């Protein structure tokens, strides 16, 4: 039995220990905010925070996070008012919105590590997250805004 804390709640799994965390979150735990985009850690749509680090849940097995703390978009802030979320709304970042949970989690992890990233650092840190709609200019601006106070 694998135990993992997700958004502060203890969850357990006694199925395939190799099951990617993504599918445990979405299909078993019903936390559908985390998205499937590529399955190969190439697009970042599935980004969650494990302890304090952004990880791609599509290539992270449930076994890999046993005993650790996973935060998904649903658990980032109780009212959805994390500075990154607020900045995202202020800048009207999303178009279709599908990649945005992953983008937001990546940005939140970046700001934990580097509270005042430069524009180049933002572009570098966010480069693993694809947005096919092309919201990049606004993503960059929103991360900058979140880092300077919303």
């Amino acid at each position, binding site marked *: 039995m694998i135990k993992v804390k997700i958004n502060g709640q203890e969850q357990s799994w006694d*199925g*395939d220990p*190799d*099951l*990617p965390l*993504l*599918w*445990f979150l*979405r*299909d*078993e735990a*019903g*936390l*559908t*905010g*985390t*998205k*499937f*985009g*590529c*399955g*190969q850690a*190439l*697009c970042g*749509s599935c980004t969650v925070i494990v302890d304090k680090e952004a990880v791609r849940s599509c290539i992270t097995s449930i076994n890999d996070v046993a005993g650790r703390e996973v935060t*998904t*978009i*649903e658990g*980032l802030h109780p009212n*959805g008012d994390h500075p990154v*979320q607020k900045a*995202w*709304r202020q800048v*009207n970042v*999303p*178009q*279709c*919105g*599908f*990649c*945005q*949970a992953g983008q*937001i989690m990546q940005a939140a992890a970046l700001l934990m590590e580097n509270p005042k990233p430069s524009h180049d650092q*933002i*572009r*570098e840190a*966010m*480069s693993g*997250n*694809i*947005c*096919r*709609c*092309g*919201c*990049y*200019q*606004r*993503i*960059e601006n929103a991360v900058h805004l979140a880092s300077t106070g919303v």
Partner: protein
Amino acid sequence: MNFIDNPGKLRDFQKRGFEKHIKVEKVSRRSILKGLGVTGGFVLAAPVMTRQAFAYETGAGKMPHGVVVDPRVFVSVAPDGVVTIVGHRSEMGTGVRTSLPLIVAEEMEADWSRVKVQQAHGDEVKFGNQDTDGSRSTRHYLLPMRQIGASARTMLEQAAAKRWGVPATEVKAVNHEVVHSASDRKLGFGELAADAAKESVPAIEGLKLKDAKDFRYLTKGQIGIVDLHDITTGKARYGADVRLPGMKYAVIARPPVTGGKLVSFDPDAALKVPGVEKVMKVQGWPWPSKFQPLGGVAVIARNTGAAIKGRNALKLVWDDGANAKYDSVAFRKELEEASRKPGLVVRREGDADAALKGADKVIVGEYYIPHLAHVSMEPPVAVADVKGDKAEIWAPVQSPGGTRDDVAKTLGIPEGNVTVNVTLLGGGFGRKSKCDYALEAALLSKELGAPVKVQWTREDDIQNGFLHTVSAERIEAGLDKSGKVIAWRHRSVAPSIASTFAAGTVHQAPFEIGMGLADMPFEIANISCENPEAAAHTRIGWFRSVSNIPRAFAVQSMVGEIAQATGRDQKDMLLELIGSPRIVEPNVKDLWNYGEPQDSYPIDTARLRKVVELVAEKGEWGRKVPKGHGLGIAVHRSFVSYIATIVEVAVDDKGKLTVPRVDTAIDCGTYVNPERIASQIEGAAIMGLSLAKYGEISFRDGKVQQKNFDDFQVVRIDESPVVTNVYIVPPASDTPPSGVGEPGVPPFAPALMNAIFAATGKRIRSLPIGKQLEA
């Protein structure tokens, strides 16, 4: 992006009938209440509008099921004052789910903070056409939505006037209330809903639409999209997020070659994967068969991860069929050879052959644009629950009505027994106009007797999609001694989207010929536009801006080449070719004009010139740029909008390309939400850069060679333009609205190529750029 010039293929026009485009359907109030899910509320009851009084004509009425202008269908007011407005188009990132209801709220004087948007299910008899493609939603629905809002407002005013016993002319709806200023009385919309429902609906001809100066929301761009909070908190529901009790998860192994068939399969290893419950065949249709599933083998599991792992363990034997030899290298040669010989003439003015022979100088450009995949961030996905002769679908579809038709036909049940719930779309770009994934889910659910979610992986999306066509474009421009262009021959060779509907298709369909080939706007005396034959060897489909991508690439690159050959400034050359301000009427019988009447939407070179001049001014054309940088410009009319783009590129000594700045000017006529227009244009620059730098799907032995985002790359944030500026041309008061979602894409790649030439002296004619700058 619709097939309406090719009736009988995409949708059954015979059955639907052109005349039926204006709805006179009787809809019972009960069914509306049910449809809107309002409990204890009142729906504004009104006779259905039988006519529309357009200030301008659009092609809306010619779309399947036309337009429904009926406040009962789109608006309800609850006793607590909450106004529910139906959004009947699919949201894939354009903001349409906000923009159309916002138009109704504006005219109705509803307070947007007390408006709820309800997504319509697929029902074109009730809601009118729902095909969310072709950059048509605002274009076709600005006026109908205003009329719906104005009808509702008038009925609320009439109800208040009766209540107070005063003439209706003395009352006025203002911000969710009706006021009688003479007696200082007010009634909220909620208090008036029941009475308003009894009012007769004013004739459309008599409706008073708001004066633009009184707009609170339209043209302001200050309202965020309705899903903004849900998107940023993970609550927004896309197709993949639908969960039903007892639902099974499926992934499907499909034939790797278009038209291939399953010979045999061994499910044993797959069945041993923990969580896998069943392996089953999926019915396939012979190619081409419109949007019918390819068939294959489905792995059914308790979660998607197990289903994918199970599929990886399947042993499969395929018969690759007639397209087993499809090879992109060989096919390119075939297309290019065809482009060097005369083809079907689709436009002829003057005598291009003679003029080219007599020209002082002939400039020849051969351009190649490969297949592209849509790769919306949400791969295709659908949930189906089929019980007996009833089916319910939850899916991200651009064509809810078409999906309903196709599910009914595929299952052999009446259309009325199919409910299509439209979720948010995690991107569409034309891919989700084809509902094959919903049909797969329906077939599996029927067989399993349980709800099923079919999830496409990224590999499925890239390898089994409906690709953007592959194209060879050849242009010959003949110049006289003074350097004036006197002859223009453009041959465009590409498999047609029509090949997905009918075997043996070798020519472009009229709607493709009208996308940047035969509608070419330059003032040249001798013109020949030709379409040599090309057969398809895979499924070809609409991709954001469709044939405009290769055509604008060729035409606007050629403008740069002529400027280059004659030592002219690119922008001056472009304006000279566009010529005098005039209405262009190409010598083409029934020229496709995006389904729009020529009277409302002519090819207007004054507007084309205007966007060039505006972007040149705002984008500081001719400014000094550092060494290794270059500026390029391109303009293109598509989806009846006019767009010009300037790209500044920087190429370092290793051939690495960056884009410091993009400037784009758009004239899309009367518009609703400038903030969303800007977001579409910003995104179009990224998509344009993606296809220019990396975009290539190639085939060998009939199979797509790319699999995922590592070998089919798209632009990431660290290589995106540093800044994209968007300028919107303020419309003249009577300019009809035109497209926004697609037209930003076509001019980007040629502007970039012109910029690369300015920076490096290298002319790139073959996409993608790939490593061409590294040499």
